[in-house]
């Protein structure tokens, strides 16, 4: 039978090959009645198979599932890249989509829907990679096809909602190249919407990395929850810190900051390290306290200010007022300092 001859040549010819394959499957699996039924609908070929009432299709498929050639038939179907018949393509795509859905496959076979205006040629390389998934899919397809025919449409819809990698987005170009996935509409609206969704997902990923503890969470709503909590906690922290700073002696914060401002003006090296500032302050810091200050400075790594050196002069002045002249020489040296003097020394 010359069909078998054609069947041997598995090179993706398009419709006639498909028909041959379909006929071949019928030939192997079924009895006479099937063969008689199908040929008049040969024009549809594969589509004709789909037209069959479900029960018969089920029997057909089950009987044919055992033979290895079936697998190869469908495998060859999978390798077709740009079939000419859109209708067949649609049906085949739906089936393959179903199969990949059931398998939880990350890669959807990236064949384009066949409106010729749409497909971009960027993804030709990915197709050979994706045919491998089609192999797996193919074997599964037959067993899955039976129960799923009635849920075709819904499966298509759910696959459209899946997040897949087959559409790419190039943000640098003025045009966004988005590849339509199988079984999806290809009008400009849905394409634009899909591009927009991809953008949102990319940004959400960045957010997830930024906010601690968001990587493990699945689902947009929960991630957004975490983000909201994080922002609120940061805002509350700012309030707490400003409250703490305000409750510290007022002279400290405002004076310190003027001192720091002047200091910052002069030390524009960029490195915010206390090290550079320590060098600038040896005059003001007494010997006995210098070691103490250094110790203090090294302890908290985040805080790198020689505030200790700064605090001394300020507190020194206050102590002066409180204790009169009963001073240790701890305070004596520092009392001579004055913020203005500090500035001049800088």
């Amino acid at each position, binding site marked *: 039978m010359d069909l078998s001859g054609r069947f041997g040549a598995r090179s993706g010819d398009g419709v006639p090959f498909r028909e041959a394959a379909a006929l071949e499957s019928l030939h192997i699996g079924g009895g006479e009645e099937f063969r008689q039924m199908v040929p008049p609908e040969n024009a549809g070929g594969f589509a004709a198979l789909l037209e069959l009432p479900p029960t018969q299709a089920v029997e057909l498929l089950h009987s044919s599932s055992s033979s290895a050639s079936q697998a190869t038939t469908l495998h060859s179907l999978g390798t077709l890249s740009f079939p000419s018949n859109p209708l067949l393509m649609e049906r085949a795509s739906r089936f393959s989509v179903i199969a990949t859905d059931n398998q939880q496959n990350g890669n959807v076979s990236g064949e384009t829907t066949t409106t010729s205006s749409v497909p971009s040629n960027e993804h030709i390389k990915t197709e050979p990679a994706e045919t491998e998934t089609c192999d797996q899919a193919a074997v599964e397809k037959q067993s899955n096809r039976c129960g799923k025919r009635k849920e075709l449409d*819904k499966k298509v*819809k*759910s696959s459209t909602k899946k997040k897949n990698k087959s559409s790419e987005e190039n943000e640098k170009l003025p045009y966004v190249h988005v590849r339509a996935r199988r079984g999806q509409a290809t009008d400009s609206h849905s394409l634009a919407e899909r591009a*927009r969704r991809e*953008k*949102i997902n990319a*940004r*959400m990923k*960045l*957010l997830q990395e930024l*906010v601690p503890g968001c990587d493990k969470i699945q689902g*947009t*709503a929960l991630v*957004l929850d975490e*983000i*909201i909590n*994080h*922002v*609120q906690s*940061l*805002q509350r*922290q*700012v*309030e707490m*810190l*400003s*409250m*703490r*700073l*305000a409750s*510290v*002696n*007022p*002279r*400290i*914060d*405002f004076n*310190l*900051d*003027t001192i*720091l*401002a002047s200091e*910052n003006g002069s030390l524009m090296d*960029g490195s*915010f390290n206390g090290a550079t500032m320590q060098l600038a302050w040896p005059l003001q810091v007494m010997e006995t306290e210098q070691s103490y200050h250094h110790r*203090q400075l090294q302890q908290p790594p*985040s*805080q790198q*200010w020689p*505030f*200790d050196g*700064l*605090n001394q002069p300020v*507190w020194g002045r206050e*102590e002066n007022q409180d*204790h009169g002249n*009963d001073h*240790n020489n*701890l*305070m004596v040296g520092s009392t001579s300092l004055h913020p203005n003097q500090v500035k001049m020394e800088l």
Partner: protein
Amino acid sequence: MQPTSSMKEEFLKKWQMGLQIYRPLIDNTSVSERRKAIKLSADVAMASLRKGTTCWSRALIQKTATEDNFLVRQMLSGIKAETLINKKLPKVMCHRKIVRRSKKILRRRQSRSAIEEVAAKARKLVKKKTQGLRNVVPGGEFMSNDVLLIQETLDYIVSLQTQVNVMRSIVDAAEAGSERTAYYLGKLKFAIEDG
């Protein structure tokens, strides 16, 4: 993206500039007023880091301008202050009752399949969360689309983190300073009593 040291430096400088404006007013203030002054100047400093490029920074500056116009004017350079303060952001007003009623009507006409219902619920939840996010991020109500909202949130979180880091280090230092005072006071007393 984590806060960089240059960002922290800039923030600190601007914050101090703002605090200096309050310096003549130190004596009359209570704790709460000082806190407010600190917070406002910190906020304006954080927002001015972005120099008006982001939506949240503009909204934040406008918000603080309602509380303390003088501070904002002083802290920002002249031209920008005028444009930022006077410009009114377009308000996206939606009359909630009307929106709710029309949504109810739409819902009645929609088909209800199991999967669609689940998806619709998920979408509703996400919408609620994004609304919550808009409430938290300054100027969120004015961001028309979600992409912009998420971008702004990213930037806002990074800026908030710099603000918190710098403020925390200053507070720690200031409080450590007060501890050292106690330490020195103790030392003093000891020295006085002993010697």
